[in-house]
């Protein structure tokens, strides 16, 4: 059963997957914390993922075979689970990226129409 911040997670639902996949493409295999930190940094702090949002998302991606997780060691010698994008993940990302760009451009031209 989802907890009480599920409302916020739902808003992110569609975009979280694509953000994670893109981050993994950019950074290569990284652990969950690095993904969250990267998204926070890229969004200038607008996106702050709690563990309750990030990890169910990662698990979902893993279940769909889009990412693969493996335990490893960080540069600080801490154990962490590292995620890498799979071939299926790359295909999915390409497809969603195209879709997203299309939607964004439609929205852009719609919202910037002259009155």
């Amino acid at each position, binding site marked *: 059963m989802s907890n009480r911040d*599920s409302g916020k997670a739902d808003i992110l639902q569609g975009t979280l997957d694509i953000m994670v996949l893109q981050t993994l493409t950019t950074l290569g295999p990284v652990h969950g914390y690095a993904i*969250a930190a990267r998204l926070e940094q890229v969004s200038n702090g607008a996106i702050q993922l709690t563990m309750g949002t990030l*990890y169910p998302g990662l698990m979902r991606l893993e279940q769909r075979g889009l990412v693969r997780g493996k335990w490893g060691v960080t540069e600080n010698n801490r154990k962490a689970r590292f995620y890498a994008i799979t071939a299926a993940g790359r295909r999915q990302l390409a497809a969603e990226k195209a879709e997203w760009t299309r939607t964004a451009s439609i929205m852009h031209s719609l919202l910037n129409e002259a009155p």
Partner: protein
Amino acid sequence: MTPREWARRLWATCRRTRSDRDLEDELTAHLELAADEERRRGTPEGSAVRIARLRVGAVAQAMEAQRDQRGFAWLEDLARDVRFACRTLGKAPGFTVVAVLTLALGTGANSAMFSVINAVLLRPLPFPFPERLAAVASIDLRATAGASGSASWPDFFDWRSSARTFEHLSAYRETGFTLVDGGRAFHVPGAVVTSDLLSTLGVKPALGRDFRINEERAGADVALISDSIWRSQFAAAPDIVGRAVTLNSRRFTIVGVMPPAFHFPVSVPAAQIWITNAEDARVDNPADSPMTAERGAHFIRVIGRLRATASIASAQAELEVIAAGLARAHPDDSGNRGVRVASELDRLVGDTRQSLLVLLAAVGCVLLIACVNLANLLLARGAGRGREMALRTALGAPQRRLVRQLLTESLVLATLGTGCGLALAYGSIALLVRLAPVTVRGLDQVTIDGVVVAFTAIMGGISALIFGLVPAFQTARTDSGIGGAATARATQGRGQRRLRGALVIVETAVGVVLLVGAGLLLRSFDRLLRTAPGFESQHLVTATFRLPDSRYPYLKQILFYDDVLLDLRALPGVDSAAATAPLPLSGSRYSISFQQSGVQRPQSERLSADFGMVSPGYFRTLHVPLLRGREFSDADSDVAPRVVIVNERFARQYFGDANPLGQRIKPGLSTTEKEMPWREIVGVVGDIRHQRLSEESRPAYFVPYAQGLISPLSLVVRTNNTTGIVEDIRRTLARKDPELALYDVRTMDEYVATSVATPRFQTLLLALFAAVGLTLTAIGLYGVMAYGVAQRTREFGIRLALGARPAEVLGLVLRSALALIAAGLIVGVVAGAFATRLLASALYGVSPLDPATFAAVAAMLIAVALVASYVPARRATRVDPIAAIRSE
């Protein structure tokens, strides 16, 4: 979710690829990494972890969210909830035991009742494609109801040769054989069947062959025997086929052995030997016409296998056309005959269906009461758990999660209760079957099979929803803002009290319906038992034997009966002995047409009445009053003038106030005479309920058996020694002819008991269900009142402190109980008035709206309600004001 993802999730759930431990490790690592960063930013060591946690969230919540994602969260939740429910219930053993027992009673009664319905109504006949088996009967178009369901041989042959909607059409009649083995004679139930009966049923002999069509001709003496006879009489000899067996002193060739499970005709006791209708085509005297040529003699049953393309309706339509043709061709015999096609199962089940469904509805009511009681229990329990619910809500459990938890508790209760119920049903089936009338098909095969278990499980699930849903929502509807004791009180508002009151009303109303039904049946059954059958059944022993035609030509049979009766009367302890056929209340009835002297009617409109053959002294033996004239005497022999005795109803119906003595009638009954003789009425006797105790007697006439013997007679002996006499009769008979077998040895009281077996079964069960229902209702009311009083302890304390007298407080509580009961009574009486219509056909001498029954039920319920609420009410008057107020 796509199917693939479903599969993956299921896999994950089962395999748990990532354990809780693994997930937790990852989240802890995440938190550590966040804390590391805080430290890097210079946050003091003490608060680094705390701030990190604020930023990334708590591990526990993330775990929960991930578990949801991982597999089927509900499956894991369910397992957790079930474990939790078991622990919770274990902590309240009193509540659990009461709840489980209540449910066990409710579901047990239901599953026992359903197992009967399953065996009698639902289980198909044990033949291939049983739905295509149809019963065909010739009916009297003038009769409004109660058509006999039999046919005559010539009608059947015509149907068989012209009907196209049937693959096979066969006829049969039940009979009995005397089998002599090693000097001992015994009776074997059997049947006369057409050669294609087995093809119709879709059965083949296990050994040997089926009958052939040319074996329907007179002289073809062939027989099929049952597996059990084959084993008991022939030591399961493998070379049985072709061997001879002597039945009724005639030799038959055994052509086959039936499979062990074969049971047809579907009756008790089961037929063991089958011979062909060659039996009825045979005549002893070449001048006579065989039974197979008697179009007016309706005494066989017809069963057919419909073609796959045909239906009952199309068969009915076709046979109606054929019957109309027969009516035109044979106006004398068939002028008023129609035909009726019904499914064989429907014919066998008959009116049992209605009474079983009424009983099922009644046990449904019992279960409903049980559910209402449980709902009440759960509500009270839920109210006590307000603190727990508030705490769990405060900790972040959403309401639906709590509802689910509470429903799981109900499910666990239902599972336990249903399990105990099944065990209860298993234990009670033997009793149920013993009480049941033996003649109902399938009752000997009542078992708890898969269908019954499935029904019980579904019923248990539905019950859990009925009794669990409302309390679950009520209990879970706590406001997390208010904590602790305040919440516990808050849920005791008017809403809930009203809900509990409504439940009591429902329960009472259902109880009233049950009680009214049971009351009506009890009154009706009482009437039935008080009904005099027209004779005194006590101290009467009856038995039948069959004289083989081959050794006993007509006159010799009469002499033999005379002789036997003479010897029986001389036995010690015998008051009187007589013989008759058909025996009252034995189920058989002969109806034979007659002409009335001086009244002309065309043959097709001829009157008919019940017919009996009796010995001299028969009416005296049965203690049937002789109203006019005389009884038959030994002087009414086969050479004496033909005489007849009629019953009172016959005299009234056909002679009105005129004296029937000396009048003459001519029954359509011929034996040795060239022409049917006129017979003079020499006596009028009282009416006998011949068919059933509940059925008024019809007009009937009796002839001395010496002047018209058409079937084996039953002996009727009045004696004080009803047990020892049987051996005496047997010995007497054996002395005269050792190859005769005595059968159907029973007391007349047994026949009376059998004739009321169905109403007794129904009455007993409904009374039992009503008693259970009433007990549950009383317990439920007690629970509600006790709880209400406990809730209002403070109020009563204040009232008493302010000077209220205990009697006033007592009245207050009792009044509130009576208000609920009164409302329930009103609803129940209205519902009962509708429901008892279903019982109308089962009632005898009592109206479905019998005011006395309704009044008695109301009085009984009010009495029970007062008793159930008196104890809590007394408690209310003993409240210590000081303690009550302090306790808050």
